[in-house]
């Protein structure tokens, strides 16, 4: 399978990426690791006229800790997050989640920004970033704006990043509360059939709707003093999972309850 023809443009700064987006408009797509976009282009589900390669933009790559915030450049690859001592020490949920993305070859190419901007609810990192209350920063011609993870995901493959904007970095608050990420897959390298992330009092679910969701009912039940097992029974409340080749909607609801319970139990051992 070969993608439809396009023009490849490699840029070396965010400013150049923004200029290229201005020139090519909505016919352009940003390319970083390419592990969501290139498969879609090979299937002709995406046919951009121009690909703007931001993978060698230095200001988009790297992990820095300042105060209580870990800042991760959008073009930082999964393996760098997975193996970073700083991430492992200060936000272990994120390092662990990154280690379960796809397979080693995918983690060697794919980037956190690409995964987040693709906006697939069955992806791993968006779920954990939602539980972590991360903040995404996007940059456009008019400057930068910060978007909390809870407002970033808008629908199936749709996010708050406008066609003329670049996701530049993701800020993750450092915390030492208990954490867990539970991913259920049928095949080892697959997207999650359902996933659940817990960080402290926050609980998030993947693949239970068009976007990753916070399990607010579970969070409220825990706050109100219910047991983990009682609270976990509410994990599928307010969700709208689909039925597809991986699982039926009912099975996904069952998985959500089980995975949330497992995640809460594991997180409690890490307090």
């Amino acid at each position: 399978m070969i993608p439809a023809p396009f023009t490849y443009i490699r840029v070396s700064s965010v400013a150049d990426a923004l200029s290229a987006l201005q020139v090519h408009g909505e016919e352009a797509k940003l390319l970083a690791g390419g592990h969501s976009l290139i498969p879609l282009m090979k299937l002709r589900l995406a046919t951009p006229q121009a690909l703007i390669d931001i993978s060698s933009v230095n200001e988009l790559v790297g992990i820095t800790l300042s105060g209580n915030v870990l800042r991760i450049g959008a073009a930082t690859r999964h393996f760098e997050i997975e193996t970073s001592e700083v991430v492992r020490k200060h936000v272990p949920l994120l390092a662990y989640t990154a280690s379960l993305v796809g397979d080693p070859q995918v983690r060697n190419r794919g980037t956190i920004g690409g995964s987040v901007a693709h906006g697939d609810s069955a992806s791993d990192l968006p779920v954990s970033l939602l539980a972590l209350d991360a903040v995404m920063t996007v940059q456009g011609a008019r400057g930068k704006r910060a978007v909390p993870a809870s407002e970033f995901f808008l629908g199936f493959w749709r996010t708050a990043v406008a066609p003329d904007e670049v996701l530049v970095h993701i800020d993750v608050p450092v915390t030492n509360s208990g954490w867990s990420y539970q991913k259920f897959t049928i095949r080892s390298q697959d997207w999650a059939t359902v996933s659940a992330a817990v960080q402290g009092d926050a609980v998030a679910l993947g693949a239970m709707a068009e976007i990753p969701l916070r399990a607010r009912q579970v969070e409220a039940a825990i706050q109100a003093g219910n047991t983990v097992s009682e609270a976990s029974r509410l994990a599928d409340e307010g969700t709208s999972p689909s039925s597809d080749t991986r699982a039926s909607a009912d099975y996904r609801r069952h998985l959500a309850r089980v995975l949330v319970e497992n995640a809460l139990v594991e997180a409690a051992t890490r307090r």
Partner: protein
Amino acid sequence: MTAVHININGRLHHHDVEDRTLLVHFIRENARLTGTHVGCDSSNCGACTVLLEERAVKSCTVLAVQADNQSVTTVEGLSGPFGGLSAVQEGFRQEHGLQCGFCTPGMLMACTALLTENPSPSEHEIRHALEGNICRCTGYEMIVRSVQWAARNGTDK
């Protein structure tokens, strides 16, 4: 057409290619190195795995233009002390790590990357590192043993 320069196995390959040319096609059709296989062509099976700047990647999901001015190692670039075979290749021979052989070039590259990073992996680490490579013949048991053989008998990188 775009001029692309890729160093493959220590030799510079320069070709003018369409921007949409995949790295695996650059390797097989422009550089004429057909050891790298196209399997699923959808970044699942890992048969097309090569090392790009020393890291394992699926060359069906990388554009040749993205690899411009970078270095690639393919299965043809593996060689070592065991009669021209690398330790990983010799491990596959000793432990019967292949049957039909179609997945083998990708397996060898993924295993080579693993042992470069982690010279004595546990069985769990071997299986985790090979999640991106599918074999329909061996049931993976002999592949795991092949990696263990290579780890015991020395790697060449």
